[in-house]
């Protein structure tokens, strides 16, 4: 998933489409635009198009790559259930919840979709919020919103809890939040700062508007009665101090709702928008915030990447991931084209160098030496090299032969002939001396394969010897013929 610049949230509540685009910048939120439509002919596709979203099936992926699109699902047909499970792994909890759902719900498992969210572990027990809805209803909804490829489908009631927390000063961990629309009221139970149950009542602000001056009327009584039933359903009937927040745009109608609830013994209070940290292109009023409270809440949720939202559509809708646009260099076609061009260039350059190289060298040589001179120079150089190989350094040989012998050894002759070993003759005082002489010669540079024959003169006791050895490569017939 890439980094989103802004979030577009669209909902259909009270038969009215509402959409906002929210941008987060430097920790502050900015509403870029708001749009609503009460036109009965407008559907999800039409409204999404009105909001500037691409709704064509062939639209390229990434058309709305800079903004995330979120659709809100009305939880009127969704059942919430609160239970506790022993501390266990996700798979075990899943199994327990499936089992509970099968036993408690009237529909077979294949006709329902459920999702759950676990709270923090307390006393080896874990509170779990379960949301269940008919699969068919969810599939129909997916069919409606798929055209504008939302990245997420979130529950409206979760959006209400979110905006209550962020822009209606919702600082209580446990509370009941009422979001009153024109013809209905969304009642959300908040536990540990998160939605744990929600119910939709079919009494709206318009039902109160007509009765605004008479407090104990049939509507208010019915509303108070419904609320008691809801709290009973939530399991909070005996919690008198549980705060009940009625989201309000500041008008008197909401005050009358709160009054009726107070009269019914509930700890009700009005929650008005606090728009610190919220900016907009045009001036924002409390009414505006209130009107678009649910889509703004959903957009806030979408920005919260770590939010553990209840996702009823997990198995029914796989959103398109924002694909990071790959650099054109990674395209195989471009790579092949570049390689081909490089190869052609290489061939051209090689050709040009091979064609131009010899002629340029010839020109330079012609400028300095003539062709005849050039050939002569080459021949001369080759001859010098040959002569170098043919010329033994006899002075060096005499020096080595002389230095290797110690006092007492007298040399009488030395014979060198190419292709034959060097031969030296002489006299030595003892065999040891001769042996040392042989050893010294053997160790001398350029001399190898030293052999000698010796005879002792009976009269003088001197040893006459003849020694042979190879000097460099001049003694080898093969080497000489090669050279």
């Amino acid at each position, binding site marked *: 998933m890439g980094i989103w610049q802004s979030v577009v949230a669209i909902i259909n509540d009270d038969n009215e489409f509402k959409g906002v685009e929210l941008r987060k910048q430097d920790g502050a939120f900015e509403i870029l635009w708001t749009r609503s439509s009460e036109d009965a002919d407008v559907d999800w596709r039409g409204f999404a198009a009105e909001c500037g979203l691409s709704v064509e099936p062939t639209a390229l992926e990434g058309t709305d790559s800079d903004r995330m699109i979120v659709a809100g699902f009305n939880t009127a047909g969704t059942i919430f259930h609160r239970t506790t499970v022993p501390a266990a792994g996700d798979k075990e909890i899943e199994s327990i919840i499936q089992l509970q759902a099968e036993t408690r719900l009237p529909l077979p498992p294949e006709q329902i979709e459920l999702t759950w969210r676990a709270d923090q572990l307390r006393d080896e027990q874990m509170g779990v919020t379960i949301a269940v809805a008919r699969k068919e209803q969810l599939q129909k909804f997916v069919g409606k919103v798929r055209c504008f490829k939302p990245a997420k489908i979130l529950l409206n009631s979760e959006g209400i809890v979110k905006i209550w927390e962020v822009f209606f000063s919702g600082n209580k961990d446990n509370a009941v939040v009422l979001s009153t629309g024109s013809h209905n009221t969304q009642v959300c139970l908040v536990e540990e700062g998160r939605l744990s149950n929600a119910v939709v009542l079919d009494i709206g602000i318009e039902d109160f508007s007509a009765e605004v001056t008479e407090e104990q009327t049939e509507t208010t009584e019915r509303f108070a009665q419904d609320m008691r039933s809801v709290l009973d359903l939530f399991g909070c009937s005996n919690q008198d101090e549980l705060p009940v927040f009625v989201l309000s745009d500041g008008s008197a109608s909401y005050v009358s709702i709160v009054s009726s609830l107070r009269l019914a013994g509930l700890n009700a209070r009005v929650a008005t928008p606090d728009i610190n940290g919220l900016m907009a292109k045009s001036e924002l009023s409390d009414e505006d915030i209130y009107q678009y409270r649910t889509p703004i809440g959903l957009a806030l949720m979408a920005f919260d990447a770590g939010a553990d939202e209840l996702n009823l559509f997990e198995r029914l809708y796989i959103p398109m991931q924002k694909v990071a646009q790959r650099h054109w260099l990674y395209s195989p076609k471009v790579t092949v084209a570049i390689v081909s061009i490089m190869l052609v260039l290489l061939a051209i350059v090689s050709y040009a160098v*091979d064609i131009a190289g010899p002629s340029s*060298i010839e020109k330079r040589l012609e400028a300095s030496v003539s062709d005849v001179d050039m050939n002569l120079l080459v021949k001369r150089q080759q001859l010098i090299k*040959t002569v170098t190989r043919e010329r033994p350094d006899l*002075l060096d040989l005499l020096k080595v032969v002389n230095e290797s012998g110690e006092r007492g050894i007298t040399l*009488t002759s030395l014979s*060198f002939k190419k292709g034959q070993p060097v031969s030296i003759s002489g006299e030595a005082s003892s065999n040891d001396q001769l042996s040392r002489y042989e050893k010294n010669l053997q160790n001398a540079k350029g001399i190898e394969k030293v052999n000698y024959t010796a005879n002792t003169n009976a009269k003088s006791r001197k040893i006459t010897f003849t020694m042979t050895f190879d000097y460099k490569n001049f003694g080898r017939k093969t080497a000489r013929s090669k050279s």
Partner: protein
Amino acid sequence: MIEKLSKKDIRALKFGIIGAVAIILFVFGSAGHKRWTKAKANGAVLRTKLDAIDVDKARQAGLMSIVPVFEMPQVEEEQKFLFRDKLSEQLKRAGIRNKPLQVQPGRKSPQSGYKLLLVKCNATCQFVQVLDFLARLNENPYLVGIEEFKIKCDPKKQGEVELDFTVSTFAI
């Protein structure tokens, strides 16, 4: 117009274009290839020549220490005269009184295109004179190498040696 063509026609057209391009490439490419091959061969010959004459400084110094002077070989008669003359001069300079130098035809030349001439010398002299002669022998610009070298001393005659050597030169 292209819309009116069938898939087969388009395929045939594609093959035709590919064939035409291949023919053009072959015609011009083969001429270019010939030129390229010739140029490469010329380049290789030139590079070989350059390699032959372009020796690095250290190697050149090594060559110069062994062959400090060198004259290109002349025709046999002239070369024979020049080499013998220079060798006599070197012997004389070393104080060696030699017997007349004998010129002999040599063995197979180590350098194709040149004959190898041998000059044989016998002398009786002092050992020091031999050393002096050998030290200056490389200064003979016609010398190729010492083919044979024999030195024998008589213990009874102090310092006197019998010298017998053969040196070679190139000739055309």
